[in-house]
C-alpha cells in the first residue's frame, strides 16, 4: 500500500513538474519535484499561467478540477501537488 501511494505521488509530481516546465521553462527547468525544498517554492506564475497550470495537469492526468477544488491557499508547488492528489483520490473514490 505504501508503495502504491509513492507511485501515485510520483505520477502527480511528474505531471506538475511537466506542466510547470511547459509554462515557464526558463524559470522552472525540468527537475524532479521530490525534495522538500522544491515543494515549498512559490509557483512564480502570473494569474493566467496559474489557470493554465490546472488545465494542463488535467490533460496530463485525466482528472478534472472544479473551482471549489481551488479554494484555499495554493501558493507553492507542494500545495499544487497535494491538491492534485486530493482531487485524483476523490475522483477514484467517486
Amino acid at each position, binding site marked *: 500500500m505504501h508503495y502504491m501511494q509513492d507511485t501515485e505521488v510520483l505520477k502527480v509530481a511528474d505531471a506538475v513538474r511537466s506542466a510547470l516546465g511547459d509554462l*515557464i521553462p526558463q*524559470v522552472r527547468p525540468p527537475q524532479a519535484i521530490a525534495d522538500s525544498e522544491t515543494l515549498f517554492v*512559490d*509557483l*512564480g*506564475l*502570473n*494569474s*493566467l*499561467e*496559474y*489557470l*493554465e497550470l*490546472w*488545465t494542463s495537469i488535467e490533460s496530463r492526468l485525466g482528472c478534472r*478540477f*472544479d*473551482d*471549489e477544488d*481551488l*479554494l484555499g491557499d495554493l*501558493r507553492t508547488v507542494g500545495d499544487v501537488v497535494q491538491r492534485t492528489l486530493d482531487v485524483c483520490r476523490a475522483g477514484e473514490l467517486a
Partner: protein
Amino acid sequence: MTLRVETWCNILHDFPAYAKREPVPKHMEGNGGGRNTDVRPQLTLELFRQSNQADVAEIPIPDAILELYAMYRPTPLIRAKAFEEALGTKSRIYVKFEGQNAAGSHKLNSAIAQAYYFKKAGVERIVTGTGAGQWGAAISWACGRAGLAATVFMVGVSYRQKPLRPVMMRVYGGEVHESPSEVTEVGRAGRIKDPQRIGSLSIANGEAIEIARGVPGARFAVGSGENHVLLHQTVIGQEAVRQMEEIGDYPNVVTACVGAGSNFAGISFPFIRNNRRHGKAVRIIAAEPIACPKLTRGLYAYDMSDASSTTPQVRMMTLGRDVVVPGIHAGGLRYHGTSPLLSAMYQDGLFEARSFPQRKVFETAVLFARSTGMIVAPESAHALAAAVQAVQESPAPICVLANVSGHGLLDLSSYDAYLKDEIDDGAPDEAMIANSLSLLRQRNEYVEAAV
C-alpha cells in the same frame, strides 16, 4: 419547436486556431501583466476553460443559470413592419430585442453566468467597470441574486448623462463610483489627466482591478471582450436562428453594435457557424460610432484593456489605451479596443464594420420609436442604422436582422438632447487618435497596417 436554448455556441470549436493564444512578443513583456505570486487569478477555472476550449461545439448551460434565464428568455424576435413602411422599403427588417429584462439589456446573460461561477469559486465580491451602465446594472442585480457584493466603477461622462443607472445599481445593492474616482490610485491619476472627468472604460477597469487585487475575496469581472462573455451571449443568436427558422425566413444580413463586442458576438456567432457549416452566406455587419472607430480605423496590435497597465497584452483592433473618446451618448461603445477573438475574426474577413455619426444614429432611433413604439438604447440604435444602410444599399429587397441589445428608457435625456438639436455627430478627436495610434505603433514596432 421549442425555443428554450440550453447550450451556448462555442465558436472556438469551428475555428480552433483562435483558441491558441499567440505568445506575446518578448519586447512587449514586462509592460504590465508580469509575474507576481500575489496576482490571484481574476478568472475562475470554469470561465477560463470556457474562454479557451475548442473541443466541444455546444457548452451546456447549468440549470441554475437556465432558471434565471427563464425569467426573460426567450427574448422576442419581431418583424418591424411599420419601420419598413416608414423607410419605404420592401426589405424585411427583424429585430431581436434584449431589453425586456430586469437590467434592461443583453448584459444580464453574462452577468447571471459570471455571478454563478464566481460564487462557486468562493468569491465574495465582484469589482467591475461599466461604460453606459448596462453592465453595471446587470452585474449588480446578478450579484445580489447570487449572494455576492458588487462594486462598480462607472465612466464619468455616462454617470452624469444617465444619472438613473447608478441609482438602479444601488437599488440592486451595488456600490457605485463615478470614474475616475478618488478611491483608487488609478482614479486619482486619471483625474489629473482628465480634469473634466470624462473617463473611459480603460480607466474604470483599471480602478476595478486595483480594488480587486487589494480586497480579500474580491475578483475583477468584465462585461464584454473576453471569450467567456462572448460565449454566454450566444444564447441570443442560438434563439434567433431557431426563431427565424420557425418564422420561415432567414437573414441576408445580421447587424449589431460593437463596444468590445459581446452583443455582436452573441447574435452573430451562431450565424457565422451556419455560414461555415451549412453554406449560408449571411453578411455580418458590426456597427460602431465614428467617435470610436476601432474596427474601421484602428490597428491590429498588442494593447491592454485598462489604463493601469495591469491586464495582459492582447492582440486586438484598438485605437490605443491612451485615447479618451468624446463623450457620446452611446457610452457603451466608447471602449478603445475590441475583443481579441472578434479582432482575429475581423482580420480574417468573417464580418464587416461600418461607422455612423451620432446624429444619424439618433435619427434612425427616433424613426424606429415613432413607427414601432420601441425606444432603444443609443448603442443599439447603431445596429438599426447599419440595418437601414444595408437595406438602402441593396438593389433588391433583402432580409435583415438587427440585434437591439437594450432599451433606451434610461437614455431619454439623450433623446431629449437630440430632439432639441443639442448633440453633434460625435466627430473623433483626430489629434488624440493620431497620438494614441502613434504610441501604439511605438510599442508594437512591427504592427501591421490598419485595415
